[in-house]
């Protein structure tokens, strides 16, 4: 039986004045699928994620989450319908502890917890991402990889149907990168539905079922990661006309 469509993007366009940041993008994400979104800097990947998560309003087009139209919905409304995300630049709640940072994702979202249930869920998520012993630490004092873990745990707290990871592996050193890839691989094996925006091609190859390449706001290639990454147009987009 074919998997149901979790996320459907139809002719989505975003203009900032005269600049077309996303140009008639269309794609679908099936349940339990991990989709990679790649492209050079400024190609519109993060803008695409911001449109899906409700951080930005579409200029035109339609987005459906689990068959329901979420076009023009607020970020909070979309989150409550089952979509969570991490941010390109990690965003901690600096005056809160690690446990409170993680708890923030599970009180108002798709699934909601409170009191003992919340405590149990936070403890579970913290140990899941390897932060079990740091629950009471101020979040602002954590290392970069640990802050990334907190953000991931926060996004997973409400057990979302779709997870958007915006350059979650960026800025990690090689050792941290291995830890990070293992963590995201773990999510894949749990059967989560994920959109991964990433520059690390090794991670795209090992994590994604399918991959979409963007350039200048438009889709230039779609398919298996190995096919997309060897596509001449994708290579040209990354390296430029002369070097390709």
């Amino acid at each position, binding site marked *: 039986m074919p998997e149901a469509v979790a996320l459907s993007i139809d002719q989505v366009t975003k203009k900032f004045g005269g600049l077309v940041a996303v140009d008639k993008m269309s794609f679908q994400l099936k349940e339990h699928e991990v989709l990679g979104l790649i492209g050079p800097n400024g190609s519109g990947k993060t803008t695409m994620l911001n449109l899906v*998560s*409700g*951080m930005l309003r579409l200029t035109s087009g339609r987005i459906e989450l689990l068959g329901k139209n979420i076009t023009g919905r*607020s*970020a*909070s*409304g979309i*989150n*409550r319908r089952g979509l*969570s*995300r991490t*941010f390109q630049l990690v*965003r*901690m*709640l*600096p*005056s*809160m502890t690690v446990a*409170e940072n993680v*708890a*923030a*994702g599970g*009180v*108002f*979202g*798709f699934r*909601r917890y*409170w009191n003992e249930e919340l405590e149990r869920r936070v403890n579970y998520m913290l140990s899941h991402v390897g932060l079990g012993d740091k629950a009471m630490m101020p979040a602002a004092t954590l290392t970069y990889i640990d802050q990334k873990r907190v953000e991931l745990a*926060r996004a997973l707290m*409400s057990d979302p149907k779709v997870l958007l990871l915006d350059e979650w592996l960026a800025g990690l050193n090689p050792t941290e990168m291995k830890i990070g890839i293992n963590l995201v691989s773990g999510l894949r094996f749990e059967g989560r539905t994920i959109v991964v925006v990433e520059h690390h091609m090794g991670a795209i190859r090992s994590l994604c079922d399918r991959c979409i390449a963007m350039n200048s706001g438009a889709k230039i290639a779609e398919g298996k990661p190995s096919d997309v990454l060897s596509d001449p147009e994708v290579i040209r987009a990354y390296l430029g006309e002369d070097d390709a």
Partner: protein
Amino acid sequence: MKRWELYGLLISIFGFTLAALLPLVNTGYALSLGVTIAMYTVLSTSWALFSGPTHYISLATAAFFGLGMYAVGIGIELLSFPVLIGIAAIIGAVLAGFIGLATLRLSGVYFVIFTLGLAELIRQLVTWVQTTMGASSGLYVITDINEKIIYWQLLGLAAFVYLIGWWINRSRLGFALRIIGNDEDVAKHSGIPTATVKVLLFMVSGSIAAATGAIVAPRWTYIEPTLAFSPMLSFLVVIMALIGGSHRLWGPILGVIPFTLVWDLITAKFPNQTALMLGIAFLLVVYAIQRGFAGLGEKYWGKFKFWRDFNA
């Protein structure tokens, strides 16, 4: 209930009981000072309910307070005083709702300027209405409500504010406010309807400020816009809350008591130097005690705990 909450409750009950006895001991200067302290305690604490966790600095307190006063000034011949306090609270909540819907998508300095401008606009509007339609520039509030009753009413309202604050801090609403204050985008992407939460809390805060204005109205006998909508009131409330520490429910009162005592002394002895004191107080908050006396106390208590644990 946790142990520290029980201690807090017992200390609060003791404090309120002690404070309630003041009119039985002194009905002169001390009671008058008590009314001022109780008034600013209610205003600063209710201001901090919203502005403390969200960091949205509102300078609209005078607008709510003044409307509460005018509700009593206009209705005192027609309705009973408790009903007027209720009406004032509703007016405050409605006005805060409108301001919230219009401005809470703004943040930072834009919100501050808007709230200050709005309070001034309402003051000018009331002045214009009174001078063009009324016979005088103010209203008389002649009642048999004395300072003793005003004091007890303010004390009751203060207890109500602390109860609401305690409940909010324990609730999902309080948690949502803290998340909003840390990072509004994270809050939105965690499912929090940020605009609704902020408007709701702003309405609570505005409603309490208006009720305070209504309770205090009989104290002044004659109210006029320059007095009721004084921008100085908005600034004083902010500075007292910040000096005390707006991140804690019990923080503002730590600023209200010393500030009111010093302010009272300055206005009596050096009436021309009040602005200077306000300036010094702002500098103190910005440069020395960003988290107020409450933050300072917590810092030293933390050090003390470390020293105590170290020597244990």
